[in-house]
């Protein structure tokens, strides 16, 4: 039986692409358009994997990732970052927030820089949740 995958991206075209790959991988996609919406869905739907964009309106993936990884009830949910923002900047931002008193968070399970081909995304999903 497939697992539940939350696709978070403000671009509807990207969400469509990602959810299609998730479905073709045998899993059930759900969608959110920004960090705030995603947090609500994570709490209500408890997905097995979050495919997370970074640069979005309302709340970025950087803040959402930090919220997930510092919350005992959500920290074990796997996160694949899929963004135009490079991994080095993502990690530096987490370091900067840690220095402001936010505490350290682990690196994401997977980090892919946009754009990705469907087969690369499918392989990454398989690696994360089978």
């Amino acid at each position, binding site marked *: 039986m497939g697992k539940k995958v939350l696709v978070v991206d*403000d671009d509807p075209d990207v969400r469509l692409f990602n959810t299609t790959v998730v479905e073709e991988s045998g899993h059930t996609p759900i969608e959110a358009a920004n960090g705030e919406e995603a947090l609500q869905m994570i709490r209500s739907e408890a997905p097995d994997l979050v495919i997370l964009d*970074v*640069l*979005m*309106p*309302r*709340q*970025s993936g*950087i*803040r959402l990732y930090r919220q997930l990884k510092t919350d005992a009830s959500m920290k074990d949910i796997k996160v694949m970052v899929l963004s*135009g*923002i*490079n991994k080095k*900047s*993502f990690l*530096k*931002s987490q370091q*900067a*927030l840690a*220095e*402001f008193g936010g505490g350290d968070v682990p690196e994401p399970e997977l980090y892919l820089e946009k754009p990705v081909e469907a087969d690369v995304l499918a392989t990454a999903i398989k690696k994360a949740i089978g």
Partner: protein
Amino acid sequence: MPTGNLTMIKKILFVTKFEELGFDAIKSLLSLRESGLEHIVFMYVIEREKVAMRRGVGYQKDEAVRLKEAANIRFIDWAERLFELGMEVGVYIQVGGMASEVAKAARKEEADLVVIGRSGKSALEQFYSGSTVTELIRRLPVPTLVYKPVPENPFAFGKPFQRPLLATDWSAASRKAVDYLISMKPLIEEVRVVHVIDENAIEGDSAMGAQKARKDAKAKMEEICGRFEAAGIDARSHVYVGTPAEGLEKAARECLATMVALGSSSKNRWVERWIGSVPQEIAENSAYPTLLIPPDRE
């Protein structure tokens, strides 16, 4: 926008067409971290006319995609730099009308300040027309900072709130601007309060008439300066004679102002005086950033 309390500018909506506002403008805005800035939202509006339906061509989707991706590449670069500083960053790239899309995003994001660029030196270089600025002010419930990068002006991209020049005409809108600047105290080193007397309004043809107008204005401005000083902000007043735009420009230059601040109202004569003409003149002629402070919405 509280009065009597400190105002926190936590979130800025930064609207750019790239030609006029770049990362140097953003860097200058980082001085607002002292007043709590933690979130910058970038916005690029692809104006509908650029990609609109045309006979024989239809909706120019390819052009919209090209503009969108070009903007996205710039925003990603800027966002990486801000994320690394621990800032929160967001982005909007929309097709539509400038004023309506900006107002929509400002409301959705609950921005505390909207920053837009303004023209170069000629009308042809005018990126935001006077009517767009007017429409924005009418729609936005929060202050708008209109930036104009001029390389020869060392203060254009300095700390905008460091030495504001407050233009006053004693109206309710002006009083609102005083309240707002007082609430920005942590960012302000000194305020210069300026009133420009219209030379045609000086009564009589004697030196007495002119001096009486100056004395009356000075007395009123000293009251305003007193309010700033009571709040712990150094303030000085100046009277100029001439047209408002020329007087303010001269005053800003002589006072080494970092921006010109004006109260604005969408309902009274202030519209005609400030919104209808003076900001347009400043946009075309002044080297200084202009902060337009709206009245409290009913």
